[in-house]
């Protein structure tokens, strides 16, 4: 498989202090990669570095063998899109206007959208099952509907790589599965490379082909869910006692939490 992103000895953070400390890994084209780790381990920072919100303090991030800090931002955004945790929009834009904003990286200023752009936007809305929301106002939607519209906007960018920062954390289990199923479909049918931060280890285990477990700004372990989600790894990183079973249907690892009072005394 082709390497799409290469992270080489990257240090990075918001201030002078590094949150990410010497991270190195690769992302292959067409893969479904999960990033997991405890709070403060640097998951969001890593995603912000890879999507050029933050610049690395040290090291390099290559996209298609080019340093992303040296590529024109607009060109980068024609291929990379980003879905945040939750988008609170204060202005009552119509869903259709929001989705069309996904064409911004492909259009010049003042250039009007053509039939092709409208078609792409409409197609994205039907992919995320949100076409019926087209004429609604964004601030009148439920959290699940809003997230589907935001994903439609990013698909309208026609990316080959999609970053998602806990896109399902504000959603109920039904909507969580709906969004992850959609991502899997896009991954399989459109060969969209998906890099997603997930808090829920079982969702990560179920949907991701490969996982990167972060701990204190470093890659603690990477590999298939069965290699990463072992009770030893989880207990070391999360400092919580767990039992790892197998999901009876998919036979993927299944993490069961063990409350402290039930733990045998050391």
């Amino acid at each position, binding site marked *: 498989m082709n390497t799409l992103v290469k992270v080489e000895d990257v240090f990075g953070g918001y201030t002078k202090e590094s949150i990410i400390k010497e991270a190195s890994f690769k992302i292959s084209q067409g893969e479904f990669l999960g990033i997991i780790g405890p709070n403060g381990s640097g998951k969001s920072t890593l995603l912000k570095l890879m999507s050029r919100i933050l610049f690395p303090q040290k090291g390099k991030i290559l996209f298609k063998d080019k340093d992303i800090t040296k590529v024109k931002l607009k*060109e980068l955004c024609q291929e990379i899109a980003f879905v945040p945790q939750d*988008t609170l929009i204060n202005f009552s834009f119509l869903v259709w206007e*929001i989705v069309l*904003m996904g064409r*911004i990286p492909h259009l010049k200023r*003042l250039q009007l959208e053509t039939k092709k752009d409208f078609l792409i936007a409409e197609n994205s809305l039907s992919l995320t099952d949100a076409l019926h929301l087209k004429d609604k106002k964004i601030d009148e939607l439920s959290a699940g509907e809003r997230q589907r519209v935001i994903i439609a906007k990013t698909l309208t960018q026609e990316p080959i790589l999609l970053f998602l920062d806990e896109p399902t954390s504000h959603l109920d289990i039904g909507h969580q599965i709906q969004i992850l199923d959609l991502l899997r479909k896009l991954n399989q049918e459109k060969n969209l490379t998906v890099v997603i931060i997930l808090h829920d280890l079982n969702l990560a285990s179920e949907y991701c082909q490969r996982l990167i477990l972060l701990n204190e700004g470093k890659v603690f372990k990477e590999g298939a869910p069965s290699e990463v989600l072992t009770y030893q790894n989880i207990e070391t990183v999360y400092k919580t006692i767990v039992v790892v079973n197998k999901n009876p249907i998919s036979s993927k690892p299944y993490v069961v939490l063990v409350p402290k009072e039930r733990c045998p005394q050391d």
Partner: protein
Amino acid sequence: MSTKIKILFLSIILLAAILLGISKGSINIPIFKLFSKEYQPILYLRVARVILGILVGAGLGVCGVVLQAILRNPLAEPYLLGTSSGAGLGSIVAIILGISSIYLPFVAFFGALLSIILVYILAKEGNRIPVQSLILAGVIVAIAFSGLIIFLVSISSNPAMHGMMWWLLGSLQIYELKLLFMVAGIVILGIILIFIFAQDLNAISIGEEEAVHLGIEIEKIKRALFLITSLITGVLVSVSGVIGFVGLIIPHIARLIVGPNHKILIPATCLTAAAFLVLCDMLSRSLLPPLEIPIGVVTSLIGAPIFIILLKRKQRIK
């Protein structure tokens, strides 16, 4: 109603406002009589006032739209952020130093730019600018600069300065036609430049990071837009003084009518704000003839209650 009909509707309102603005004043003259020879000087004066009213309205309205979008703050506008007072102070200093009036707009622009930078630094808390602290910083700068204006006017030995209190309250009286043309050129150019960024403003109003993910070089664009709004505000204040609340209330009204899409919102704001200001000026001339109420008083009396309503509605921009 489709967007086109709404824009047409707003244009008709502006046209009506222009006709009212020309025919009403300290004396009412029917339109057709105005075109007769004996009334020509009055027609001439009133047309100039109406043109300045349109420019001031459209300019301040669009500045409000831009500031509200890039600061994602429903209460941002040149007056409440102290930009207008900065421009006023710049103008007064220029007059005291005896700088030729043709350079006045540029000195005012520097005053405006200075105050917007000052407010930005005062209000910034880490990486974000909270709504309340921005308005607080703006009002403090506005009060401080207004105080300086009063001080400078009162100690000035130049007798002409004592009639200059209108800087604080605004007036659409034209004292130099050349200046009006220059102001018109700069304001129209500024609005066109802002319109070029309409889609960027849409993306930025969703969120700064979201805009970056759409390929928008947000820091560069924000800087350019601060510069353009300071220029428009400075130039306008140098001829009309400080006129408050136009940039606050009109963008909100325009958003209620046409929605938040800047491609439509900017033209709609121009039309609405121009009509609003021409009508306010008409009121200022005709309510207590032969006295003229300063136009800033009229806009404040209308704007302040609306400001309170918006403040109570918290952060939401509808």
